């Protein structure tokens, strides 16, 4: 059944209640790592603090850390206020860090607010309570993946489960959102992602598995992990920085590298 939202007849049902009502199998997909992306200009201050600190979010009106489930879904800013553009840095945490997540959304809320998710995205507004899935349970995102994508592999490669079209609302609406052609909006792999919010600081020494940064910022990595303060040293991906490449190109490269790492992590798990 096509979604009722596409006809605009009724507001979508709460995603959380729908997911709770659906039967979840015992063998849900394995939990995936979560990734926070920031900018190179702030890397030094993050390193000196040794943790990610929540920042005031104008959309939600509270201090939050934004992360994405299972990938580095960095979205270069369309218009900036302070600087022309920024180089990304990415922090990938092991699934154990999911206990820190307060809530999940089945899309990039920033992209939706800025109109980058097209007409289907606009129809999901107001989205804050309807699409919020409370966190606290490490299985929450795996249930979202199961019901929306059927498997981790489908989620990672952005393949929405066609069965969503016949499931209760709001899954058909989400299917429509995730399968519409958004290339004209400059939205690519970020079209299918699960956004995670943490209201608490996240210690880098605790669950960090992998990080990416411009290669000349390696001294910060040394400052973080050369002191033997933390037992486990994460894998790093220092990306090339002899010239300033377009952020979009770098972001895509980081996303691919993160996926490669997650793939290895999944195999090892």
């Amino acid at each position, binding site marked *: 059944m096509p979604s009722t939202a596409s006809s605009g007849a009724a507001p979508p049902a709460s995603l959380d209640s729908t997911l709770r009502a659906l039967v979840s199998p015992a063998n849900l997909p394995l939990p995936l790592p979560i990734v926070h992306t920031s900018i190179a200009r702030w890397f*030094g201050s993050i390193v000196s603090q040794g943790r990610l600190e929540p920042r005031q979010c104008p959309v939600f009106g509270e201090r939050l850390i934004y992360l994405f489930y299972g990938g580095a879904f960095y979205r270069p800013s369309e218009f900036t206020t302070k600087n022309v553009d920024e180089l990304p840095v990415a922090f990938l945490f092991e699934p154990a860090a999911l206990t820190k997540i307060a809530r999940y959304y089945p899309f990039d809320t920033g992209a939706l607010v800025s109109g980058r998710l097209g007409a289907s995205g606009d129809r999901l507004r107001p989205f804050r309570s309807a699409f919020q899935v409370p966190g606290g349970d490490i299985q929450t995102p795996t249930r979202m993946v199961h019901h929306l994508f059927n498997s981790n592999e489908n989620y990672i490669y952005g393949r929405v489960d066609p069965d969503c079209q016949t499931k209760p609302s709001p899954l058909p609406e989400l299917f429509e959102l995730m399968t519409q052609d958004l290339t004209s909006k400059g939205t690519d792999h970020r079209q299918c992602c699960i956004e995670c919010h943490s209201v608490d600081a996240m210690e880098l020494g605790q669950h960090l598995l992998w990080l990416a940064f411009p290669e000349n910022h390696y001294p910060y990595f040394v400052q973080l*992990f050369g002191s033997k303060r933390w037992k486990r040293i994460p894998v790093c991906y220092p990306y090339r920085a002899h010239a300033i490449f377009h952020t979009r190109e770098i972001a895509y490269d980081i996303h691919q590298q993160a996926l490669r790492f997650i793939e290895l992590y999944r195999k090892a798990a």
Partner: protein
Amino acid sequence: MSELFHLLGHDCPLGTYPAPVVPVGRLGDKLVAIYATTSGAEVVEVAPDAHFTLHDSDTEDVLRNFSHRNQRLFAYDANHVVAYNVSQEHEFYARVLSNPSDEIRNPFLRLALAKATRDAGVVRRELTDCAKYLAASAPDLVPSWYEQERASAVKAGIEDYELPRDAGALLERLDFAEPEEKGLTSVVPNVAIVTPTKVATRRASSKIISVCILSPHPSVLGEFERILAKASQFMVIPKQLESTPAPDLRSLDPPKAQVYVIDAHVGRQATGALLTNILERFADAHLIVVGDAVTAEAYGYSLLRQGVKGILTYTEAREQLFRALPLVANGGFWVPRALLSGFVDSVLTSQGRRLKSDSVTSLSRREQEVLDSLLENLSNKEIANKLNIAERTVKFHVSNLLSKFGVRRRADLIFLTLQRIART
């Protein structure tokens, strides 16, 4: 159409200078930023009120002919910005890295630029500096870092065989100066890593060095010439020796050069005669011996006693000669660590630990005392306690000693003195 683009300034997303930067300017009535892409340049419109660094009139003047399609910008600071042609990026970065007046102190930025040159010699040199920095500040990170960098260099076009096989091989050479003397300071937040000591070394090493290669084999001469041709700082003078079983090298007339690289294949006695010959003619010559047996204990010690400053096997020479040469030309040593420590022990044993460096007569009493203490392997603090003077005064005397002996590192000062003692 590049003539429509008017460069106004730049943005520095890396946050610190020196760094590659993003050109910002007007294209028609739009404010745009120009990004590098793997296939060229990409023009991106930015907000009219976007913040960026406006160039002053001098910089604007220098960059008047900037072409956003064919050129990129590199900034030493907000008002010292240079443009280079994308097609000549390799050469540009090779120049930046070798120019002492444009000193870039973050070793990891240097390595990033070195990879862009695709020159194995330059990459190896910068890899070594980064490895030294890491070995001094975070030794646990060295192996995984090197493995990753080696793979990345190979990916960037540096052939696998041109890089040492592991970080240990990269660092195995003589280098036992204390961190403060190696010029390494703590790194963040300003990412300034190398002190003027290091800068001075780099400046010295960028001068042209005349190198005479002496070998009976045309193929060896050819190979070393080829290796050294990769770096523009060497003026190579090949000299083919007689290939008879007992060549008369005592009466050979070698050309004058700063450094002599001697192929020890001519035999032990003939090599010894050649070394004596060169030192008699040119007392300030610096000698490097290359051969398969030269790192053996007895042979190595005898070479060191004769005044040789560099010892390498053929395999090592292929990888390290171009790095050993500037160091040896500046009074340093390039000797395998094991051979060196064995030699030091042998000198200490034979001298019964009475280490008076009589050969240097122009030392003050205090300098002599400090030197004797250095030979006992005491730290500055220990010397200060022993002589009842301030540590700062010890540093002053050590600095004078380095200057009088014409060396840059404490390790070289100790080794040079021991070598002189061994020879007398």
